[in-house]
């Protein structure tokens, strides 16, 4: 894998083909779980983990899978991996597992995982596929984190609340009370807030893209 390939894959994952902002895949967990930063980050990382292992697995067996049963095979692989992760989380980070709840098994049906398996991993070498999955997962996590941060900040004026669910009681000191004595803007935490915040994020992303294009246009002189 060359550096250039690596760069292209990462650019696609983080911005150009970003799962959350451009492809709009996997919105169900994206919207439901991004109430706080910690939740968002956890689900994002879990999804990334599933994606990386699923893509790697799919890519390694891609030559043995006939075209007509590729979807069942991919779903089988993904479902198995998700169940494994579900069990592991249940065993080792139980409080967080309780919060993320049904959204962990739901990763199975997260279109972004299957989409990458089918669109990329089934056509590329394992290393590329894993890198692509990580890039995509990171892109999704990024969006989730920003969304979670926005909603948590606007909704309850804190950041990193619930960190104790992951790192134990003593990590509670890391919770940032950004706006002390904040009234709380409930809408941000409720489902409609998720849609509005995601809409704003997508708008910002498009705006930034359009601006970059305009700059590029202005920079290259028109051929005579």
């Amino acid at each position, binding site marked *: 894998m060359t550096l250039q390939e690596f760069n292209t894959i990462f650019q696609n994952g983080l911005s150009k083909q970003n799962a959350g902002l451009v492809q709009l895949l996997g919105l169900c967990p994206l919207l439901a779980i991004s109430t706080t930063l910690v939740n968002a980050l956890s689900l994002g990382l879990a999804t990334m983990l599933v994606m990386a292992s699923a893509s790697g697995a799919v890519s390694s067996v891609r030559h043995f899978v006939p075209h007509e049963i590729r979807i069942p095979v991919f779903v089988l692989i993904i479902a198995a991996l998700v169940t494994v992760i579900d069990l592991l989380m249940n065993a080792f980070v139980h409080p967080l597992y309780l919060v993320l709840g049904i959204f962990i098994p739901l990763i199975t049906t997260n279109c972004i995982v299957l989409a990458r398996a089918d669109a990329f991993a089934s056509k590329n070498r394992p290393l590329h596929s894993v890198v692509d999955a990580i890039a995509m997962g990171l892109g999704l996590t990024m969006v989730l984190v920003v969304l979670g941060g926005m909603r948590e900040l606007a909704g309850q004026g804190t950041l990193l609340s619930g960190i104790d669910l992951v790192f134990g009681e003593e990590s509670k000191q890391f919770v940032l009370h950004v706006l002390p004595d904040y*009234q*709380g*803007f*409930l*809408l*941000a935490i*409720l489902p*409609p807030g998720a849609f*509005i915040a995601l*809409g704003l994020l997508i708008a910002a992303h498009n705006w930034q893209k359009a601006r970059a294009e305009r700059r590029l246009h202005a920079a290259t002189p028109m051929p005579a």
Partner: protein
Amino acid sequence: MPSPFILDRTSVTQVMAWVLAALLPGIAVYVWLFGPGILITLTLATATALAAEAAMLKMRGYPAKPFLTDLSAIVTAWLLALSLPALAPWWLIVTGTLFAIVVAKHLYGGLGQNIFNPAMVGYAVLIVSFPVQMTQWPGPLSLTDAPLTLAQSASVIFGGIPQATLDAVTMATPLDALRTGLLQQYTVDEIMTQPIFGYYGGIGFEWLAGAFLLGGLLLWALRIISWQVPLAFLAGIWLAAGFLHFFDAGRFGAPWFHLFSPAVMLGAFFIATDPVSGATTPRGKLVFGFGAGLLTIIIRTWGGYPDGVAFAILLMNLSVPLIDAWTQPRIYGEARRRDKEPPA
């Protein structure tokens, strides 16, 4: 420049100005009931709306003058202000107005493009986000010692007041009282003996509803609104509430009580009739209004928030494209259904 070359005199500005004028009787009764505080609320909402409108127009590259003078932003501001509790804190007014103008109106494309009624979006955002503040209504005239003066109102709105003081002034709105009473297993008749209730609706509140009705009839007389939406809306309320009341008068409020709440009259004549977010075909307007009325009663009876008018109208806003598509009227020269020739 193509034909036609002459125009009727009516303009958007005129239409909006009449809507504002028709709100005046309601505002007058409001002042009589709750004191002049509403004037501060209206002014604050108007100023916020105009500032937000101007800023958004500038950002979107539209000229400010024709759009600021169309008065649509002020209509939104007034409708929202009249839906808020009297003496609502200033930040509540500003937040709601900003949301109405910036998100509900301009992010959807500005005048004529908003699929939801902006004032109701502002209201919904506030009730969802700040349910406590949004349900603190001071008691109307006859139930409090004396209405607050303008200066006192200003200090309440801007200064904020201690919880205890507010608790002393506020009381449950008639709808709230009914709901609370029902949850405590009282019957409707028992609840209706509380002092907050008047002849038909809440004491004082029913006069406010009457004033809105008056303004609405004025708009109808001027042909600024059509008869279909308000009539269907009120019919929806009356029939739905009447059905439930008939079914079990002990557990469901009387239709007149529901009809004579200010929110219903304001909603029927000023909000559901908003042309931009409402249905456009004659039959569609009937469906739209009736649906909104029905949903209002459903939400009032079983929903999680005290009033349902705003949510009902927003929900019906959503279904407008469908309603319009399904209720396309017969055009000139098109066979009426009964005239249609049987298929050969």
